[in-house]
């Protein structure tokens, strides 16, 4: 119960910062100032936006399928929020440390799709319906390259547990029960003979442990943009064609929930990318001889220092990825449907299959 409340509060804080960052980044990339009036540098703007949304009338269209229309936002947010249950936030805190966390996350995210269909159908509006159809088609197809990229990480790490994968990517590895005698080698290859177990830092991140995962990371990042309906993959919400996509009929609190779910999805996919590829809550600074930067910036597992350092590194890495997502939105034009499917099926999926094969061979070199 405590984990539920803490995660929800943390998520709301991150989403509010993200909504503010979105407006500011967009403004600066277009040579504007963005919000400036409310609070210092307009920093109260997102909070006031939410307040305004909550005061709006809750409109349910007369011809809508009322039960489905009302249920859909709850289902969408519940599906995304359920994904946060398996994310390890620090070395000692994870809401639900189940052994098949990665697999669970992939499955629970697919519930989101049902909610989108429900919203699109329930609105009884052709724009909403088209938006939902496009969104679902996009999410279902991009799950394949994303899943394959994640699969290659799972093959390298030999685990489906997010916390175990996190521990493997840092100097604290031997403190995880069951991995007391495991060792990390430079680029994961034992033959090179350079032991990085106690060096930690960036040298034990997954993209460094098995450099092929760098390709997997790029594939996952592109696919995750599509899964969270972000530009350049935002044809489900193309304003010029569909007004706003599946949530065109929603207003007031229900719209706020859908908005929150969308931003939570962005945060979730970035968190998963950080945990699987970019060293999770581990520090990027390695131990260099007597200067043990990695230990200084990791704290002690289970104590306040460990929790603070872990949360700090995880959240700052996540914000870097989120910033890239925001920046991409104003850099690339929207893809057409055929370009979208071409990218997914003819580029990303074959490359991802190749990465899975190479990751398997790499794992053989790591033993």
């Amino acid at each position: 119960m405590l984990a539920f409340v803490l995660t929800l509060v943390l998520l709301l804080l991150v989403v509010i910062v993200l909504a503010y960052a979105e407006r500011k980044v967009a403004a600066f990339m277009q040579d504007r100032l963005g919000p400036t009036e409310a609070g210092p540098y307009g920093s109260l703007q997102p909070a006031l936006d939410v307040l305004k949304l909550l005061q709006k009338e809750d409109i349910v269209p007369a011809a809508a399928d009322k039960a489905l229309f009302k249920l859909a936002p709850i289902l969408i947010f519940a599906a995304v929020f359920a994904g946060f249950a398996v994310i390890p936030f620090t070395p000692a805190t994870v809401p639900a440390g189940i052994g098949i966390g990665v697999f669970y996350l992939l499955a629970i995210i697919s519930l989101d799709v049902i909610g989108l269909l429900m919203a699109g159908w329930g609105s009884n509006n052709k724009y909403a319906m088209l938006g939902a159809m496009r969104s679902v088609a996009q999410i279902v197809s991009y799950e394949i390259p994303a899943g394959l990229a994640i699969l290659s990480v799972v093959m390298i790490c030999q685990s489906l547990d997010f916390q175990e994968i996190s521990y493997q990517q840092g100097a604290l590895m031997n403190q995880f029960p069951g991995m007391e005698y495991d060792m990390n080698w430079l680029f994961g290859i034992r033959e090179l003979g350079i032991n990085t177990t106690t060096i930690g830092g960036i040298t034990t991140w997954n993209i460094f442990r098995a450099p092929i995962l760098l390709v997997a990371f790029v594939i996952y990042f592109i696919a995750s943009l599509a899964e969270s309906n972000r530009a350049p993959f935002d044809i489900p919400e193309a304003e010029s064609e569909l007004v706003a996509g599946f949530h065109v009929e929603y207003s007031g609190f229900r719209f706020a929930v859908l908005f929150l779910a969308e931003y939570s999805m962005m945060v979730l996919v970035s968190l998963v990318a950080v945990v699987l590829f970019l060293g999770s809550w581990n520090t990027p600074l390695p131990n260099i001889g007597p200067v043990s930067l990695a230990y200084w910036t990791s704290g002690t597992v289970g104590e306040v220092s460990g929790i603070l350092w872990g949360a700090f590194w995880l959240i700052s890495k996540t914000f870097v990825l989120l910033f890239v997502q925001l920046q991409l939105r104003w850099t690339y034009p929207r893809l057409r449907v055929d370009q979208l499917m071409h990218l997914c099926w003819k580029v990303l999926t074959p490359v991802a299959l190749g990465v899975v094969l190479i990751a398997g061979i790499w794992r053989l070199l790591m033993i």
Partner: protein
Amino acid sequence: MLFYIFAILAILSGAFMVLTRNLLYAGFSLLVTLLSLAGIYVLLFADFIAVTQLMVYVGGVLVLILFGIMLSSRVHDKSVLSENVNTVWGPLVSGLLLVGLGYTILKAEIASLPWLLTADTDVLGPQKSTVQSIGIKLMTDVVVPFEVASLLLLIALIGAAYIATDKPKV
């Protein structure tokens, strides 16, 4: 306690699915049924099966069903409702199934089943999930059915791709 909640949910949503005339509502109540079945699987220490069930049925099959219903819901400007067909054979077959299952359950002497007697012991032991043992079993004891299933899926995939392609005019 949890088991009864999931069981009641599964039965209610299953009944609703059968009784409702609206195909779309039937699809969404199937979602509730599948979710509560996944919950029951978790209570049975079958976490991998539970998640696989979500992945395959909710993420794949159910989305496909809903897509089908939505794309074909208004044939000739009339929304499609499910109708009563097979009024003789349907109840007969399901009644026979019920009798057969009931007979089996009554004959089984559940109280003396060996795995129930050891139910108090920790099933998983030091492992954190059932994935390792399932993986080892799949690669050793049941490798032939596993490979045959994968071959079947591959054939289905090729068949679907073949049906979907535009045939070039000869």
